[in-house]
């Protein structure tokens, strides 16, 4: 029996790093400190594992890599997609592969917090690592996000419960507000719930900003929220010692998208003229922040990067995966650590089913089922080490708690092999 301590959880953007994993006889038999989702990920690690296959037939690793390289090198507009649930080394290789192919590299932020990034590029942001929230925040607002179900230990570790340096009372020392279109479990856990009309976030944010500026609203209510509530919240925000807004897909993927975030940043900026105020996106996959980070330092851009001209170009809406697929532009794809067939709009998935697809994953998914080549990999954070970036940008070292099954390589090494083969096919190796 081997016990691993302080293991970093490779599930969500919280990247909790205090897990204890027990391994007996090559299997995970115990998980401590983890949330239900994380526990399930570790305990069911061996189930539904993907097999090596080309055209549905069992293949060797060499054969699969050869076919993958041939498919990609032969394409005119290959797409490299996924990357949020693997380590940074693999992400760097994926960028390199796209460059060698003259294709497009994109990650899952194009369908989640892409709008957050667009807003940042427009107006900036005021962010922090989560410990500042734990140590100082006395006002915490969850807007269009529901950590009680999506980031299960967020409230316990970072944002609501913990006793911090200047919040010694823990939960009692914080006023928690939930803003959402329906009464979620988060809303019930909060001290105050503000129900906003579907699609009304942008107006409410602007009204709040105006109220913070001292403008008296003429409207009786904005987006279904009474003017008194708006004035009340604005007053509370200004009076906070340190406040923060955590926002989720309720804000980024609803009507207004990046303009909602633009308005939220504006509100927070305004508040900084009165007190300290911060905001933070609730990033989903455990290393989606790393996918943006690596892609940015290697190319200058966080996602939707096209190398067709030999240098990186960026245009969300054009080089984003959903758009490339829905327009029928991509003629081959390699999917790494992601399941677009289950998450993309039908139109995009239909096209994905028509083109040759190479998928690197640990498990069977709808995407692997429509793939020409499937390559199982050693799972980052379970069977392979690597780096992952927490939702707030804190980089942590993923641990290897289990030996991978024989022959399984981490994403990074498989990608390296594919790059090598593609270069040979393209005659770039002397």
């Amino acid at each position, binding site marked *: 029996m081997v016990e691993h301590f302080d293991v970093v959880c490779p599930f969500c953007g919280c990247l909790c790093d205090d897990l204890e994993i027990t391994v007996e006889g090559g299997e995970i038999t115990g998980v401590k400190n983890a949330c239900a989702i994380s526990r399930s990920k570790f305990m069911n690690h061996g189930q539904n594992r993907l097999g090596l296959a080309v055209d549905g037939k069992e293949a060797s690793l060499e054969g699969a890599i050869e076919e993958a390289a041939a498919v990609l090198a032969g394409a005119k507009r290959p797409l490299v997609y996924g990357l949020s649930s693997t380590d940074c080394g693999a992400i760097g290789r994926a960028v390199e592969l796209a460059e060698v192919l003259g294709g497009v590299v994109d990650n899952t932020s194009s369908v989640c917090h892409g709008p957050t990034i667009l807003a940042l590029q427009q107006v*900036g942001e*005021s962010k922090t*690592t989560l*410990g500042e929230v734990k140590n*100082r925040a006395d006002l915490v607002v969850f807007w269009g996000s529901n950590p009680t179900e999506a980031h299960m230990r967020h409230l316990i570790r970072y944002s609501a419960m913990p006793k911090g340096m200047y919040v010694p009372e823990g939960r009692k020392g914080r006023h928690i507000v939930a803003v959402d279109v329906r009464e979620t479990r988060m809303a019930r856990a909060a001290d105050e719930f503000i129900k906003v009309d579907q699609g009304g976030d942008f107006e409410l944010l602007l009204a709040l900003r105006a109220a913070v500026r001292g403008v008296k609203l003429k409207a009786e209510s904005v987006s279904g929220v009474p003017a008194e509530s708006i004035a009340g919240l604005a007053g509370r925000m200004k009076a906070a010692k340190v406040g923060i807004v955590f926002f989720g897909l309720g804000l980024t993927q609803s009507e207004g998208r990046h303009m909602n975030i633009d308005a939220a940043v504006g509100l927070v900026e305004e508040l900084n003229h009165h007190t300290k105020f911060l905001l933070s996106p609730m990033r989903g996959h455990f290393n989606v922040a790393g996918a943006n980070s690596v892609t940015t330092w290697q*190319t200058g851009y966080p996602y939707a990067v096209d190398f067709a001209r030999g240098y*990186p170009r960026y245009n969300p809406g054009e080089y984003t995966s959903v758009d490339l697929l829905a327009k029928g532009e991509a003629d081959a794809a390699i999917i790494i650590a992601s399941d677009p067939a289950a998450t993309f709009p039908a139109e995009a998935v239909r096209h994905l089913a028509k083109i040759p697809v190479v998928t690197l994953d640990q498990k069977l998914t709808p995407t692997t089922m429509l793939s020409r080549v499937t390559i199982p990999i050693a799972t980052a954070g379970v069977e392979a080490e690597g780096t992952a970036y927490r939702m707030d940008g*804190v980089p942590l070292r993923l641990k290897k708690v289990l030996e991978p099954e024989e022959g399984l390589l981490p994403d990074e090494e498989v990608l390296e092999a594919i790059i090598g083969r593609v270069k040979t096919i393209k005659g770039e190796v002397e």
Partner: protein
Amino acid sequence: MMDGLIVKGGYVYDPLNGVKGDKMDVFLSGGKVVEEIRGRDAKTIDASGKVVMPGGVDLHSHIAGSKINIGRLLRPEDHRKDVVPKTKYTRSGVGYSCPSTFVTGYRYAQMGYTSVMEAAMPPLGARHVHEELNDIPILDKAGFPLFGNNHFTLKYVKEGDMEGLKAFIAWLLRATRGYAVKIVNPGGVENWKWGRNVGGLDDLVYNYEVSPRQIVTSLARANEELGLPHTIHLHCNNLGVPGNYETTIETMDAVKGIRPAEGRSTNVHVVHAQFNALDGENWMNVRSGASKLAKYVNANENVTLDMGQAIFTDTTTMTGDGPWQFRLHNMTGNKWVNSDVEMEAGAGVVPYTFKKDNPANAIQWAIGLELALIVYDPWRVYMTTDHPNGGPMIYYPKVISWLMSRKARTDAMLEMNNSVMRRTTLANIYREYDFSELATVTRAATAKVLGLDHKGHLGTGADADVSVYDLDPTTWRPSMYDELEKAFARAAYTIKGGEVVVKDGEVVATPLGATHWVKPEVPEALEAELMKDLEAEFRDHYTIQLSNYPVEDAYLPTGRMMTAEGRWR
């Protein structure tokens, strides 16, 4: 690459060894400078009629980590004007003020630089810094962890526990694989976590009740007693505030009496001094405080400076000085990113354009040059633009032309707001650097003050980092500043570790350079006491486990460790 290379017949400038343009050969073998190469297998580079110098050493730049990456993320519009296609040898990327990692390595190497320091590493983000450093090819690098607003620093200073502070510095350098003690707006960034700042050396930090003066002097003393290779690397309080030259002088004066470590006569490096040498009461009547600051530096041997030269262009400012960046955002209305780091530090990023017709900008431009020209000892004032804060590093050749040619300066001044004539002394300065002085402020002196003994010179045993510029120094005159700029923009050869990495201004090889870090020795008993403290604080106040904090060996594939033997009580 190890079978030897001879750089033949160039005019060699090697100030650390007293070589001033002598025509001679430089022998390289096994990654080092050697006395001689026997046998005929060595390759030869014809450097006749050219300038030969040790590889450039930049001691203050922002090239890796969360701050520059926020800059990259924030500025797609910056990238679009400077795209870099892939070549047979190089990766693609983007350039200008926030270059991608690969391009950062290429561009520095193309200018003959072989070592560059990342001047602000948030300790909690150290892994990120190292990941990016590993994606910067060619250059030798190091990261300077931030100490000036760190909880443990403030706590030990408050308790007056010097030995605890020293043990902590040693531990953090080891944990982050860092190289030097960086301080940014001491105390001000901690106060910024409540939305405030400090206004001077004797203001107090909330809850800790210590002053910036106490923080700086304690860290400086600890730094020297630890015997670290570099002095404290200090971004002073009140950056960007007219009248701040007084704070800067006060700060330098505060550390004056502290005994430098063995083998060094300085105890503080004041970074990007241009931003901290403003006289006047506000931005309307701002004037240069450079001559006053330079006068102090001339009279006090404990101080070194770098210029932080301003360039007239659109650039991206990024510092660990959160409150300053918010102030700049309010002054300009430009987009603003704030980024706080729990227990340790903060940062901000704001795009900024230095304009020729802006009186304050014209004065700032002059201040950097005044400092470099009025401080008479080139061993104590270094060329930087605080890349990219004063301007992108690709403008170094322009700065060189201003340092070496009064005509270049005059021609530039004629194009800008006449505040440069009225509120600075630059027009009255006739000094022009010679090639030895240039080599001093761009490599010899920077390597020396960093304590990188194997860099910045071409003596036997030095690292085989050499740059060759296509310019004949015997016929060059200051009026020919265009040729100078051209030659220093694209090195004829850059040699890194004995390997030719740039030829005729183009990158031809991309080896991974070393990452330097320091591991100071700590008495066991002190270390044990420190660990107890760290364990308690991490449990209560950090959001990651102590065991997951130190950067693992995996992040230093080319690590180069130095040790330091301290004085302990």
